[in-house]
């Protein structure tokens, strides 16, 4: 036996030597190395037993174990470890040898993991310092954090360039940043982008070495889950926006039918969606509680993500939540309403959120649907996230209100039911979803409910139906300060640049026309006075600058713009003549 000075280490080593004499196959493995390190760590204020307990904590990385041991390492103990490594009589397994060598600073803490990947990209080691590996010289390394992406609006192709392979084909310590920053246990998908623009196959790794435990559960974009009645006691479950994830690949979702208690589990596929043809037992009107696990967190599915309702069920009876009063134009002289309500039970979202979904009703709130349509163009996920189906015939719409003292925005949750004021023929009186489907069981509901919640928040449809500004709506939906720019006096280049910058930065943009003083300008132009339009984009055709605009009526536009869908291109010079104010967010 090498001469070991520290009594604790000596006791352990003597025991191992004794065992090895009777059983020559005994070696120092990870477990024995931890016992030795516990004896080293006993100077950190712990007993060897408590140090061992600390070192054996679930989820503790090897680096953290080494750090604990190093903290208590004395010069004598260092020499003892050197003797065990260099002159010991009990053989060491390679991993245990490298572990102990790391404690005394001879080698890197981790045994070099075999690289993972494909012919284009190989990832090596853990991610303590970032992502490292090999590709072809000059390749860009693109990555996306699949564990963080479902919460945002990234598609699977929305990667971030995290590094570049050097002349030897090596890249080191590349990192995802911002919302994409890696946490322990996150799934990171990467590929190499070659100099000719082509990309190699994806490589996916689970991030290690970033913390003591994987604490981020699989995020679920519940607003992308669509439930539809299959008609045979089954409900089809699908991702309504297949270019984006419902959750991270490999995550398990549990859908519990609140009526029957029946639970169905499903594993999310490689694209972050449900397997094709996935269905669950249920019927229209059933409510499903959704929970998820990444295999480490929420494994019992105790924490619910949210609830979803299968559209088309029998409506709950009675007024669930008091409806906002009608606009004064729709009240009789005695204050009684000229219109009644009908309960709508269609799906919140049919195919996600589109700027073409919104249709202004018979109310003077053009600034509202034009703002919502602009947000739907720039940031559809913000709208999908702001509304939640409570599963009981009610919905919660979350607005933002600025605290002018602090400058911060606070959440304003508004709860509404599915009752909408209707015309004699049954279609909605106020905001509706554009298109021929105005059915009470089938119409997509997100826009009319967001407008109803807005009226509820402000006091009534009358409170929102006498004009307003889209920039206020931008603030109240996104929690970002709105900006107004006078178009008439703007330098055309400045106007064009402002508009382009806002659209390129995925900020919503709208434009308002002049009021009564300029009305004669508008007749026969296809553009209306005192009106607000969404600005959906811009383009340059043969050197002419064009602004793409949408009328929130979903129709009526200047001639020569194709189908009468309210969407048209206007030359910048005409835009500057007909429009008064440009509104956008910072």
């Amino acid at each position: 036996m090498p001469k070991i000075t520290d009594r604790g280490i000596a006791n352990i080593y003597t025991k191992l030597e004794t065992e090895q004499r009777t059983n020559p196959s005994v070696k120092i493995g990870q477990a024995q190395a931890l016992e030795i390190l516990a004896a080293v760590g006993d100077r950190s204020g712990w007993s060897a037993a408590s140090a061992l307990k600390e070192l054996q904590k679930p989820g503790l990385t090897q680096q953290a174990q080494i750090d604990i041991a190093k903290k208590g390492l004395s010069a004598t103990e260092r020499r003892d470890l050197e003797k065990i490594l260099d002159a010991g009589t009990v053989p060491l397994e390679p991993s245990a040898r490298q572990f102990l060598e790391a404690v005394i600073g001879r080698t890197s803490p981790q045994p070099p993991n075999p690289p993972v990947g494909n012919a284009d990209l190989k990832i090596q080691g853990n991610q303590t310092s970032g992502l490292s590996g090999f590709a072809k010289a000059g390749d860009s390394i693109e990555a996306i954090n699949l564990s963080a992406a479902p919460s945002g609006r990234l598609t699977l192709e929305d990667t971030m360039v995290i590094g570049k392979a050097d002349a030897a084909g090596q890249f080191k310590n590349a990192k995802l940043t911002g919302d994409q920053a890696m946490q322990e246990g996150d799934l990171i998908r990467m590929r190499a982008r070659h100099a000719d623009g082509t990309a190699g196959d994806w490589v996916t790794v689970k991030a290690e070495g970033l913390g003591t435990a994987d604490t981020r559960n699989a995020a679920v974009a519940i607003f992308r889950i669509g439930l539809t009645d299959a008609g045979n006691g089954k409900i089809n479950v699908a991702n309504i926006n297949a270019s984006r994830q419902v959750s991270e690949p490999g995550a398990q979702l549990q859908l519990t039918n609140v009526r029957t208690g029946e639970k169905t589990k499903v594993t999310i596929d490689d694209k972050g969606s449900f397997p094709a043809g996935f269905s669950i037992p249920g019927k229209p009107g059933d409510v499903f509680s959704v929970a998820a696990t990444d295999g480490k967190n929420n494994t019992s599915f105790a924490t619910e993500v949210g609830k979803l309702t299968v559209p088309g069920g029998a409506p709950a009876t009675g007024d669930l939540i008091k409806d906002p009063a009608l606009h004064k134009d729709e009240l009789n002289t005695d204050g009684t309403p000229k219109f009644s309500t009908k309960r709508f039970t269609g799906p919140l979202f049919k195919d996600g959120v589109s700027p073409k979904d919104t249709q202004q009703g018979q109310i003077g709130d053009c600034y509202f649907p034009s703002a919502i349509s602009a947000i739907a163009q720039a940031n559809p996920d913000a709208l999908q996230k702001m509304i939640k189906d409570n599963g009981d015939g009610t919905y919660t719409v979350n607005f933002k209100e600025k605290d002018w003292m602090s400058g911060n925005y606070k959440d304003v949750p508004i709860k509404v039911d599915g009752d909408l004021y209707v015309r004699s023929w049954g279609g909605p009186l106020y905001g509706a979803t554009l298109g021929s489907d105005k059915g009470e069981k089938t119409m997509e509901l997100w826009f009319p409910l967001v407008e109803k919640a807005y009226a509820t928040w402000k006091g009534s449809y009358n409170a929102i139906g006498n004009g307003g500004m889209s920039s206020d709506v931008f603030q109240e939906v996104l929690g970002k300060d709105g900006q107004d720019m006078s178009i008439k006096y703007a330098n055309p280049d400045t106007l064009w640049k402002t508009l382009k910058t806002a659209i390129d930065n995925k900020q919503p943009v709208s434009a308002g026309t002049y009021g009564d003083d300029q009305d004669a300008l508008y007749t026969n132009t296809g553009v209306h006075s005192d009106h607000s339009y969404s600005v959906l984009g811009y383009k340059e055709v043969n050197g002419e600058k064009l602004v793409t605009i949408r009328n929130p009526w979903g129709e009526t536009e200047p001639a020569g713009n194709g189908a009468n869908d309210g969407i048209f291109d206007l030359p910048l010079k005409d835009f500057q003549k007909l429009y008064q104010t440009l509104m956008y967010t910072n």
Partner: protein
Amino acid sequence: MAKPPEPLQDVLPKATWVFDAEVVEVLKQGPAPEKKEARAGASDTGQKTASQTVKIKVNRVLRGEPVKEMIVEKPEAGYALRAGNHGPFLIDDSKVILGRYGPDTYAFSKLEAAIAAKK
């Protein structure tokens, strides 16, 4: 006032005449309506423009007795007319222009289809 046009099925029954016509002359302008209070830059404030009496030249009659021209009233509304403005005019029996935006309220194709369906 930028509410959408009234549903055609609500307006068409009130129309004694439906013309394809053009404004020849603005004969009279009514008093300016009361100014609505609104923030600068606000849209859909409901501000109306003055009533007008205008002479229109009729190019085509889609409904009603044939006439060559007619003097009609544009009520206080969210649009204004000037010579040369043209399009479909829906006129009631008091010779008042119907439709929230006068000749810009409904497309010919929509009107023609609705009138044909009534026949």
